[in-house]
């Protein structure tokens, strides 16, 4: 018995034992520079105005066009899905110039992108080989795919392509200008001239009262979900009664949050289809 015990103690030690890895500097994006930025989101939209004016369309970029921007919205709250809002403010352009502050969605085929693309992270994207266009009018960088309804749409980019087409620049700064939402006024929301691709996607804040809020109802109960697994709520502005849709998916913390009564400010990703719509990033976007 003593022999057996001794042998066991000496021989049967654990083989399933590993040192923890150092993950400082871990990247899923390109470890090397993609090169100098030679294009902007504003140029991209201006050069492809007809493309971005459509509802669903896309085309492939053939040249090395490198844009930059800051991650202003991601899936940190589980509400945005496979979506990064890339926003760039060109300080050289004057205030009021439409080209000064532009944003576009970069779709990435992966869940939980936040650890790799934190809010405030500046990125460069080489568009070569990727597709640009619109998904339900939303300007987007992605790759085509067939939806569950069998429709051809502009979907997300394969995560694997981030290693060749995306570069992180510096450290994330959530306090940067790109992470500050644009406060939309009731007048701005009402003006039909604003309903164009140059104004969305964008990180915005809107103030109003949620029509369905009764002190008990939550944002997105499963019983109300539509075919897109989301629930729309109506945010009404008290000044001129403009309405903005707040769209929330049914499986995240926002979904189960009780909608606050009264007037509040909501921050999120702005889009336009048949009406203005925002998608909150997380519960903290409710103020």
């Amino acid at each position, binding site marked *: 018995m003593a022999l057996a015990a001794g042998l066991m103690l000496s021989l049967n030690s654990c083989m399933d034992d590993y040192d923890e*890895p150092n993950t400082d500097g871990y990247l899923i994006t390109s470890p090397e520079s993609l090169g100098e930025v030679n294009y902007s989101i504003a140029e991209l939209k201006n050069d492809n105005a007809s493309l971005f004016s459509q509802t669903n369309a896309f085309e492939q970029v053939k040249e090395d066009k490198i844009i930059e921007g800051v991650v202003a919205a991601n899936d940190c709250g589980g509400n945005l899905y496979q979506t990064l809002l890339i926003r760039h403010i060109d300080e050289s352009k004057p205030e009021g110039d439409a080209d000064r502050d532009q944003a576009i969605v970069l779709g990435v085929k992966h869940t939980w992108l936040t650890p790799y693309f934190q809010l405030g992270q500046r990125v460069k994207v080489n568009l070569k080989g990727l597709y640009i266009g619109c998904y339900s009018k939303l300007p987007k960088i992605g790759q085509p795919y067939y939806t*569950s309804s069998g429709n051809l749409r502009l979907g997300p980019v394969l995560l694997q392509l981030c290693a060749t087409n995306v570069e992180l620049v510096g450290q994330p700064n959530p306090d940067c200008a790109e992470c500050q939402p644009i406060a939309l006024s009731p007048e701005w929301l009402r003006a039909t001239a604003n309903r164009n691709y140059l104004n969305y996607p964008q990180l915005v804040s809107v103030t109003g009262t949620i029509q369905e809020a009764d002190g008990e109802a939550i944002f997105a109960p499963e019983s109300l979900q539509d075919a897109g697994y989301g629930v729309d709520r109506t945010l009404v502005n008290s000044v001129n009664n403009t309405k903005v849709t707040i769209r929330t998916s049914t499986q995240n913390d926002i979904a189960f949050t009780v909608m606050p009564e009264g007037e509040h400010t909501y921050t999120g990703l702005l889009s336009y289809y048949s009406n203005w719509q925002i998608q909150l990033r997380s519960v903290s976007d409710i103020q």
Partner: protein
Amino acid sequence: MKKGVKLTAAALLMASGAWAQAPADTLQLSDNTDFTFTESQLDEDNDAAQTVSTIVGAKSDPYNSEVGYLFSPMRFKVRAYDNQYSNYYMNGLQLNDLELGRFGYSMVGGMNDATRNQEGLSAYDYNRTGLAGVGGATSVNTRASQFAQGSKLTLSGCNRNYVARGMFTHATGLLPSGWAFAGLVGYRWANEGVIEGTFYNSLSYFLSAEKRINEHHSLSLVTFGSPTERAQQGASTEEAYWLANSHYYNPNWGYQNGEKRNARVVNDFEPTAILTWDWKIDDTKKLTTAAGFKYSMYSSTALGWSGDAYDPRPDYYKNMPSSIFDVWDPAKNNPDYLAQNPFLLEQYYDLVDYWRASEANQQINWDRMYFVNRQNEAAGGETLYYQERRHNDQMVFALNSAFSHDLNRWGKYTVGLSLNSTKGMHYKTMADLLGGTTYTDIDKFAANDYGINSIEAQNDLRNPNRQIGVDDKFGYNYNIFVNKARAYGLYEVNRGKMNYRLSAFAEGTTMEREGLMQNGRAPENSYGKSGQAKFLGGGGRLGLTYRPSGAHILSLNLGAESNAPLARNSFVAPRMQNNFVDNLTNEDIYTAEASYQFRLGDFSGKVTGYYTRFNNGVEQTAFYNDQEERFTYLTMTNVNREHYGVEAALKYNLTSNFSVNLTGTYAEAQYVNNPLAQVAYEGMNASTLKTLNTWKNPVTGQQMPLCVVADGMRVNGTPLTAISLGLNYNVNGWFFEANLNYYDRVYVDFSEYRRLGNVLPYYVSEGFDDKGNYLFQNVNADDLAKGAVLYDAQDGHIVSAYSAEQEKFDGGFMLDLSIGRYIRLAKGKSISINLSVQNVTNNRNLRTGGYEQNRDDFYNTGVAKAYTFSKNSKYYYANAFNAFLNVGFKF
């Protein structure tokens, strides 16, 4: 390192402590199959030679004595019976696990030289130990006095799960004092086994002491164990094998810090003790009483991740190139379509290139999980990826007492009583937070469905939002108590040319769950005891043998029995709640076989035909449901199966030392009805679960009992056709053996989920043709092959139900050779050398098993998914060329 040492030392102390307090205790064994594995996976980690089910080497039966060894590379199961239908006895005590029904050979792993003295028994053989299962029994005698006096050192090298093995055995023989002692210490090891990313680390000990008190009484005590740590191989899809350029690709491992780490590691230690009292009352009467105790500690690790984190498995379907477009659809996989959709091939090859760019891309990315956890915590979140350890521990007390009496020259009988009390302890602990520090014990899937602040999200309402650290229990924690008492008798008469054997048993079984956590999805029926379910069973067998001459033997055997369901199948969702499965009943088994055995000069053999019917069986599968992204239980009740076929073993002696053998079987084993089904998701509460188990008639709108359309499905994981042509030659201490084996009709483990009545597509009749047959013009043969339920348009009755076709694997040949030499030395010493080589021709395309993915091919919209799950089953392949060199030195 510290953990492993602790475990071993603790187990030793415990085992010896148990002996000190209760000298008359011993064991019951189990392979502790993790409940999350499918049937196909249950035996994947055992040595191939040890996975052979049913009786080992029934010496009187030329078929059963050969097939275990012959067909082991293909994980052959005799008559396609599950291991639960075979019994394993040691020194008179049955060691099958009461929860799983099976005996796990890992329990006696690495102690081959201590368990060699064994006898194979068919279901109808008379024996003095106990009743064999319908699949037979193996009875091992490890009493110390039965070991040959002396020492033996065995050294082995191979390229299998382990690469080196050593065993040292010493036996005193029966000493003048009446004592006999025998012991064995063994070790098996592989830093990396033949499958990449696996390792093996196993120590074995076996100690036996016997005291012949006088000519009537003898006491024997054996204790043994085999603390083992081993990393597992996983099955994968053919596409993954193609991308990795190997049928032995293992998705279970990945690099961490540049070192290979396996996500699925088993730790197994089942210290056991058996005390046997042999009382020879007189020359015709004998009473053998054995008592045993076992405390097994089994755990298996697995990756866990929260609902938002990306699935970390490298062969997750969204990582596969074929997830881009349906490569199986000729309408899409053709030049014209792809020219119109060039982005499909672009993305397809992007993924192909990624897979092939480096080996690391094909494996688990541990560093990424650490990175995500650290990032998430830095942002105020929690650990998203972790490694959990699922424990299936067990404490067993067992007793068997058998009285045998040789009545006269013709007749003898044995009567006995066996008792078994088993406590299964099932829980999981946090094995590794993978760089994180914070984890709250809530169910992430329920949190998504009901909200993170909901009652449903809590895994234990008595300890809500408990913070979990490494080694803490979380998720689930429950005990299963099973008690079984059996009385049995066997009777044999030899009269002239006739031999009659009669056996019968009656047994009672109770089972009960005790929840140690109050689950938020089942707050009223998860904590505390479930109440006992009680089952009465019994049965009998009759064997008749007629020997018209010494050269011919005819046998007819019949049996009928009713057995309690297994505890592992009896609870709707055992990790979550106490409810028993609906329609839980005994399984009834009817058996019949006839055989003819002959010897005509140099030609001898045996041919057997058999038929076995299993009625009202209960089967449960538990799996991560990709479709619903939830851990799922699916239980089938009222399962009926038929097993029938022909077995033959023929031998022709060309000379006295050279023979030719032909051994084989052609079997059928299939489901013959559509069993009732019950589905449970772990993340759902009772009211939501209720909606899962509905099957709405599309014509009448009425609810129908949910069932699995399984009629015609074959039993999986074993070749139903296996034939061997062998040559045996021995001369001057040398022996040579060559076997050319052919295997065919291995079937994939079918997904019950995909064949649920409410998951299968349905079609409604469109009138009748001229002959009055139903018209289903919108259905073609391809549709039916994918499974379909056809309804009458008038009253909604089911005209017919088609199960989705079950894949049959390609057959193939395997050549096995062995050569051995026995050298007798002076003073009773000897050396034996044996080299066995399997799969000499290196056939790497023989599938031993596999299982379908539990997900269907269509979105809720009815549109086909790009990834065709029905075409992407996961497979296991028989080992490539492998060799086993064994050298034994007796001194």
